[in-house]
């Protein structure tokens, strides 16, 4: 009967829809970060930067999650990725295209992924990479304050992590939960941001504390507004030195969304 056929189609469609709602629900697990203004400790000449409310994944993306993505999008598998989008170290630590191998934990953050791959992963979840300002804004928080940068202990903790080897092998959630309900912003891996290439440092930044005026247009865009925050300086220097196709063993990512798009 035509009618029963239609019913079947309807049921199938409803099933798909419910899948969509389920996916939506998963997005609601994201942490809500209330926006505000902040002065990036190492940014454009002490200018206040406004950050809108946004949602952020509580954890970095794991190997298991990325494996699922690769299964569904085979052009991003280890042997399939175009060289334009990732260098030869892409998923270097995985055993093969669809297998992590024994030494790689499913729950550890995925690393050795290029910016292109990270960006695409987030797009496929209906999300995006966080902007540099969003990431830095969320990362100012410690366990109980939204901006802990004035606390000496906070900076020391971050810096001591920078000296700890191989934290990228730990599982996600193994560091502290911050004020916004976000884990692992410090202490696990470095993370890609959408506009990581908005950091302007000269090719040889040891040469001069000033920006290379020949290489950049506009004002010397980076000047430390707070020398105390050596940690932030390290992050900005790192971002300024990487390229979008680089796959690095301690560089992972997490996704974000606009708050109003929910």
């Amino acid at each position, binding site marked *: 009967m035509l009618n029963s056929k239609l019913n079947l189609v309807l049921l199938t469609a409803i099933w798909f829809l419910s899948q969509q709602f389920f996916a939506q629900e998963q997005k609601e697990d994201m942490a809500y970060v209330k926006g505000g203004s902040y002065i990036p400790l190492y940014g454009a000449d002490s200018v206040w930067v406004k950050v809108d409310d946004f949602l952020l994944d509580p954890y970095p993306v794991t190997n298991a999650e990325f494996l699922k993505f690769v299964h569904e999008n085979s052009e991003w598998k280890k042997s399939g990725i175009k060289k334009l989008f990732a260098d030869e170290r892409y998923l270097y630590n995985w055993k093969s295209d669809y297998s992590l191998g024994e030494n790689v934990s499913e729950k550890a953050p995925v690393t050795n992924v290029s910016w292109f791959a990270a960006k695409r992963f987030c797009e496929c979840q209906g999300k995006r990479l966080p902007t540099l300002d969003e990431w830095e804004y969320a990362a100012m928080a410690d366990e109980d304050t939204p901006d802990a940068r004035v606390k000496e202990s906070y900076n020391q903790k971050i810096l001591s992590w920078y000296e700890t080897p191989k934290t990228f092998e730990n599982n996600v959630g193994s560091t502290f939960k911050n004020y916004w309900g976000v884990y692992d912003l410090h202490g696990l891996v470095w993370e890609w941001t959408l506009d990581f290439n908005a950091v302007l440092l000269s090719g040889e930044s040891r040469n001069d504390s000033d920006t290379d005026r020949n290489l*950049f247009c506009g004002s010397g865009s980076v000047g430390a507004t707070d020398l105390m925050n050596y940690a932030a300086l390290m992050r900005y220097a790192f971002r300024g030195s990487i390229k979008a196709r680089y796959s690095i063993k301690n560089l992972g990512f997490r996704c974000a969304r606009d708050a109003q798009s929910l």
Partner: protein
Amino acid sequence: MKKIIYFSLLTLFLVSSCKQSANKEIEEIAQERSEGISEMSVYNLPATWTNQDNEDIQLKDLEGDVLVMVMIYTSCKAACPRLVADMRNIEEKLPDEVKDDVKMIFVSIDPETDTPERLKAFAKENFMDQDPWIFLRSSEENTREFAAVLAVNYKQITPLDFSHSNIISVFNRQGELVFQQEGLGVNSDNTIRNIKETVSER
């Protein structure tokens, strides 16, 4: 009535996320299009750009020519006029037989301000509203991605001002990046030599 519901549900299903079959088809078409394109080619980027004549193009449409590209914004007062001068200087020094195979391209890092009309006016002001000059703009996201490919860094400082790397890039006929000149008002001899060599490669 049921048909309407069915249809709208199906539409919903079709427009949903990456992994589902509808998108697979689009991917396959894209893959087909990209067949024969080298892995390192910028023609792998699916972005659509608009030129100063308000025509939509993909970078792939420029395949076959050697491309000389720089990222600027038209309201820039500091380095950009010098970058424009550098580009003009490079073009002037190219031999005629080489010129035919070269496109000189400006890509806006300020797509919001740099509308096609604005690009057109800028092209006219600079006597560049003809071959081989092309002015392009796209979405903010596509621009960020293209900059990532070129390793050009930029940041909006104020609503009107950007800070950006001054890099002129040369792409071969397959769309692969073959040379970059960094800095302002630097000697362009090396760049010109690279363009000539790239054109002579068939």
